[in-house]
């Protein structure tokens, strides 16, 4: 069924090594799905990919309106793809609202494909167009291709009688668009066809209709001669290590990380959650598992979710919870209890733009200070951040490892961009994961004391109910070595210091920092979390042009790596780009007291663009 470009039609095959396409439509048009299938096809063809989903907070905002527009952007290439590109080479817009909202993301001269059938007076007015932009000079900066997508989809499906209602037929338009996009970039249709069969195995008529729509889209490109150019990815492939691969989103990776860490540690997994955007997929993924040793609990609220996890940790399970900003602050008191009783706990915060409900479906990195310091009392815990979708797996495994070794809650910061972003991931074996060592009782002691610490880590032993002769009491009150309540002021000073020292000991777990770009340069960029790809890409590009710029990226936000201070002192100028108003910047200023540590902040609910980072670097270097 898949076809190669016909030789008969005179079409130019333009070689490229990287491209970015953006698919946009109404939130009911299935553009996320089309984007995912385009990404899947690219990944299996050996390309590297990075994706960005942009969808409204409402499930179905009024049809055809600007508020209801949903977009999916994918950058794919034969070399390394660190991040999505700022601007798309091709934009595919399913209606006037999608066009209006997404046209700023299309580069000048880019290819613009629209479903011309949707440019009706009604939809134009809903999108705020006084005049039809297809008939004016409004789009003169782009290569415009109006395609009657609705009409062709209807015509090609009406004859088949697979779907009866026009409404159902129109739902296949996204596959027409996908087929056309696949032709334009010569993506193999095979994976999508197989996926349709699998997905709709119980509804073969739906699978069949979508297959026809997909092929019609491809055929439109191939046979009409409307498009003068197709793009063929050429160049050396990234060279993947042999092994099994898949695409993974940040939230999928986080869920898989929890299951794998528990398996590696030989512990049952207990996950307490409460639905919240953009973290819910983690609980949903785990809910699919009815395994004897995986427990997923949808609690009555955010507080109960973490409370149940604390209870499971007390009983000896690897316990975790996941949430986003508003839920994260609700969990604070229980996280503090886990700090105080010293139980292992993994808390994943998939950050979104705040404060309060904020922008629920938009990305931000603004919970860092809440994670570091947002609790009552002197309450130290470990904070780490994931730098890419697939890194969510590694960070969660690392968080679990540190939690059970040091008997502490560990906060993992992900964000909306990572949670829905896709990356190609080499599937690990359990043997590939780091060993997980549980804090056990010290050998050779006469008497069991629940707060007697391992001299190396300062962790207390994890002795669970059911252990004969080891009954003891722990709680949120200050205690002494026996676990019993102590209001002795000197003991409180000692315990406060010990809790802090224990967390500082976690620096032993942190490997040396990696520096990209010019290690002897004049400007160092320090990033954390999801800005990894964009910072590294820009720094490496500018370094190649001779600029004295370097970057490093932090996985651990508390404690900080021991070699960070020396690295900062080696550079005369430091810039900290963050999707917040300067939270890591504040911490670095506090820790290292260097006035030349400057900040670069964007809080528009989206990742940095290349241009923003590039301009900031050039500015800083000019100033020096």
């Amino acid at each position, binding site marked *: 069924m898949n076809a190669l470009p016909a030789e008969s039609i005179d079409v130019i095959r333009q070689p490229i090594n990287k491209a970015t396409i953006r698919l946009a439509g109404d939130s009911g048009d299935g553009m996320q799905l089309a984007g995912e299938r385009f990404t899947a096809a690219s990944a299996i063809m050996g390309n590297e990919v990075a994706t960005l989903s942009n969808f409204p907070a409402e499930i179905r905002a009024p049809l055809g309106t600007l508020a209801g527009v949903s977009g999916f952007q994918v950058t794919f290439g034969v070399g390394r793809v660190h991040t999505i590109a700022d601007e798309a080479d091709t934009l595919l817009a399913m209606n006037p609202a999608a066009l209006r909202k997404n046209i700023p993301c299309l580069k000048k001269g880019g290819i613009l494909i629209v479903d011309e059938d949707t440019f009706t007076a009604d939809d134009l007015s809903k999108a705020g167009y006084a005049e039809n932009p297809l008939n004016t000079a409004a789009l003169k900066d782009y290569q415009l291709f109006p395609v009657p997508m609705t009409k062709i989809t209807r015509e090609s499906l009406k004859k088949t009688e697979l779907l009866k209602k026009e409404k159902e037929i129109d739902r296949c338009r996204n596959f027409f668009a996908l087929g056309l996009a696949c032709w334009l970039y010569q993506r193999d249709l095979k994976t999508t066809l197989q*996926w349709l069969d699998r997905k709709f195995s119980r509804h073969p008529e739906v699978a069949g209709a979508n297959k026809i729509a997909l092929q019609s889209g491809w055929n439109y490109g191939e046979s009409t001669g409307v498009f003068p150019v197709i793009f063929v990815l050429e160049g050396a492939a990234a*060279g993947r290590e042999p092994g*099994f691969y898949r695409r*993974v989103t940040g939230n999928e990776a986080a869920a898989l990380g929890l299951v794998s860490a528990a398996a590696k540690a030989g512990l049952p997994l207990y996950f307490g959650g409460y639905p919240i955007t953009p973290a819910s997929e983690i609980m949903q993924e785990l809910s699919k598992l009815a395994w004897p040793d995986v427990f997923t609990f949808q609690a009555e609220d955010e507080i*109960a979710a973490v*409370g149940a996890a604390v209870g499971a940790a007390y*009983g000896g399970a690897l316990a975790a919870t996941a949430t986003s900003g508003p839920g994260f602050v609700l969990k604070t008191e229980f996280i503090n209890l886990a700090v105080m009783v010293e139980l292992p706990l993994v808390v994943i915060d998939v950050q979104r733009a705040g404060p309060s409900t904020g922008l629920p479906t938009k990305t931000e990195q603004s919970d860092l200070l809440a994670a570091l310091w947002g609790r009552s009392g002197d309450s130290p815990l470990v904070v780490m951040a994931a730098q890419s979708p697939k890194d969510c797996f590694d960070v969660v495994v690392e968080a679990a490892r540190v939690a059970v070794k040091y008997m502490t809650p560990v906060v993992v910061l992900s964000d909306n961009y990572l949670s829905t972003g896709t990356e190609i991931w080499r599937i690990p074996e359990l043997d590939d994961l780091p060993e997980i060592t549980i804090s056990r009782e010290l050998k050779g002691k006469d008497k069991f004391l629940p707060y007697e610490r391992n001299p190396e880590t300062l962790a207390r032993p994890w002795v669970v109910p059911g252990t004969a*002769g080891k009954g003891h009491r722990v709680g949120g009150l200050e205690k002494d070595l026996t676990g*019993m309540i102590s209001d002795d002021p000197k003991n409180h000073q000692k315990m406060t210091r010990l809790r802090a020292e224990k967390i500082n000991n976690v620096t032993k777990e942190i490997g040396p920092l990696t520096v990209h770009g010019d290690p002897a340069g004049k400007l160092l960029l320090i990033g954390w979390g999801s800005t990894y790809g964009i910072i590294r890409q820009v720094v490496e590009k500018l370094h190649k042009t001779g600029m004295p710029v370097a970057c490093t990226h932090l996985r651990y936000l508390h404690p900080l790596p021991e070699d960070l201070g020396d690295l900062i002192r080696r550079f005369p100028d430091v810039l900290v780009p963050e999707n917040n108003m300067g939270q890591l910047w504040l911490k670095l200023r506090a820790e290292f007291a260097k006035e030349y540590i400057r900040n670069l902040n964007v809080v528009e609910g989206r990742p940095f663009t290349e241009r923003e980072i590039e301009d900031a670097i050039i500015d800083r270097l000019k100033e020096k």
Partner: protein
Amino acid sequence: MEQNTAQPPCSRKDYLGAIDPKWCPGCGAFPVLSGVTAAFAALEIPKEKIAVVSGIGCSSRFPYYLDTFGLHTIHGRPATVAMGLKTTRPDLSVWVVSGDGDSLSIGGNHFLHTMRRNPDINYLLFNNQIYGLTKGQASPTSAAGTISKTSVYGSIDMPVQPLSLALTAGATFAARVLDSDLTTMKEVFKQAERHRGISFVEILFNCVTFADGALEAVADKKKRSDNTVMLKAGEPIIFGRESDKGIRMKGTTPEVVTLGQNGISAADLLVHDPADFNLAFLLSRLHYPAAPLPLGIFRQVAQPTYNERLIEQKRRGAPKPGEDALGKLLRGPDFWEEKTG
């Protein structure tokens, strides 16, 4: 983590902790400690198999006075912790110790959901109708008009009826005991532990410092027989010093009657049936002085527990023996293999 089973202790004192309780002299929590440890001993539960999870308040210091496993958590939320513990450790005997402010005010949400899920947990609600540890503020069970530090002119809130709430939320075992009646307490705690599912016990206990005498009319040994009624399964509801009073239905409303008057006999009275939800709820609405205060077990029915339902799901959904379930999960439906670098 090793889990050896030692010989069960035989005396209630074996379950007591090394330190003396720091409750006010005469506090109603002391006899509850006796009742709970007596039930542990009678059932011969190994000490290490008991986990007591408490919230915040006077009663929530309870675990510190036991020689079992104990976790003193945060205000209002011990039931959430017990949920996670019991789910992953069904081998443990899990007891929640909570107060009226803890369970019905700050933790009201958790109370509702714990009851409806029916986990095999024993839930002891110490109800003294006042905030004691914070030194005397009105609680959600304080009677209307209660004068306290924060209801200086009398509380204008209507009180929560814990048993009505627990029953409505789905409690499969619901009982009420008095701190001054050790015999009933011990028996009810034993029944609670034996019950599979949530066992909710409201313990009316006296706060000698901030609400002394609030329970006098029902707890005082001399007045108790006239002002309370002990519920017994299968028996007509009879009370009074002379066992001459009873409760019968008048239309949809219960009324107090005297046996022998107007030809009323025991055959006219309500017969207690712990399997009857409507009766249990109706009894939970009776309060002194309008009626005698019912005590004992209101409801006791067998329903699948949270863990039993979970195990049933896991039995159906578990990976097949020998299956590489983790490998399959990690690969997902869309994986591919790269053979050369």
